């Protein structure tokens, strides 16, 4: 993990910004995945048709 961080370009501020962006994107993707899984298999809302 630290190796990946050290390979990032730029100064510390830029590296931190990149890490924040990557983590935010990963969390967003994870929640989208949870949402899709939940709707497809667990509970679609009970609609007909």
């Amino acid at each position: 993990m630290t190796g990946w961080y050290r390979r990032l370009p730029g100064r510390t501020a830029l590296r931190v910004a990149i890490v924040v962006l990557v983590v935010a994107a990963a969390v967003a993707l994870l929640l989208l995945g949870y949402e899709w899984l939940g709707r497809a298999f667990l509970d679609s809302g009970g609609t007909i048709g």
Partner: protein
Amino acid sequence: MARRLGWGLLALGVLLGGFVGYELWVTSLVARHGQAALRSELEERSAAAVSAVVRYEGDTGRAAAPLAVPAGLPGPGEIDLSAALESAGLPPASSPPPGVGEGDLVSEEPPPEGEAVGRILIPVAGVDWTVVEGVSAADLRRGAGHMPGTALPGQPGNAVISGHRTTYGAPFHNLDRVSPGDLVTVTTVTGTHAYQVVQVMVVRPTEVWVTEQWQGSWLTLTTCHPRFSARQRLVVVARLIGGPNAPALVEGVA
């Protein structure tokens, strides 16, 4: 190798725990927030602006409901409705407002999608939710949703309301506790409409006949079945037995 496997299993556990937490708690918070907003909207929905008294022209163009009412279930005119609603912990059904003649209906304009339609109460199933207009994924995140194009509660036809069983506050989590004879009320701007459950069934999600418009006035509730699965649908069908439009729509109700 063992260390990698351990980390992998740990990550999988965190992902699965996150999934359960998201589905059960995060979605419930979203629904609670949506309900608070819908309740305010419902209070602001003005009866004068969206309702009107119209002549009821009859059940033209609609087929009879393809349902078998269980033998022994008391008919709409054979129930002491006020006492039954009170003992079930439900509000009294509204009477027709002054100026509504025999054979007249208090009609209502459907709200725009995403806005509040009314409040549904089913004490035996622990249901007390504000209903939103629409059944899209976004609509159902806020509560039970009224299917656009179907009758509004208390109006002629079949009012279809769908709701989550497990996620987003699970409005219909205990809908399987409902049985024929149980009472349901839906309060809209035109008043409180009382329904009597006549049938509970499990169907496939593609069985659209349950959403068709039938003669008389019906309420159809749909949710996923069994719990924690979207494989089938639990459907509860109820008939109107009281409310401002019952004298015009229901035989035996004066």
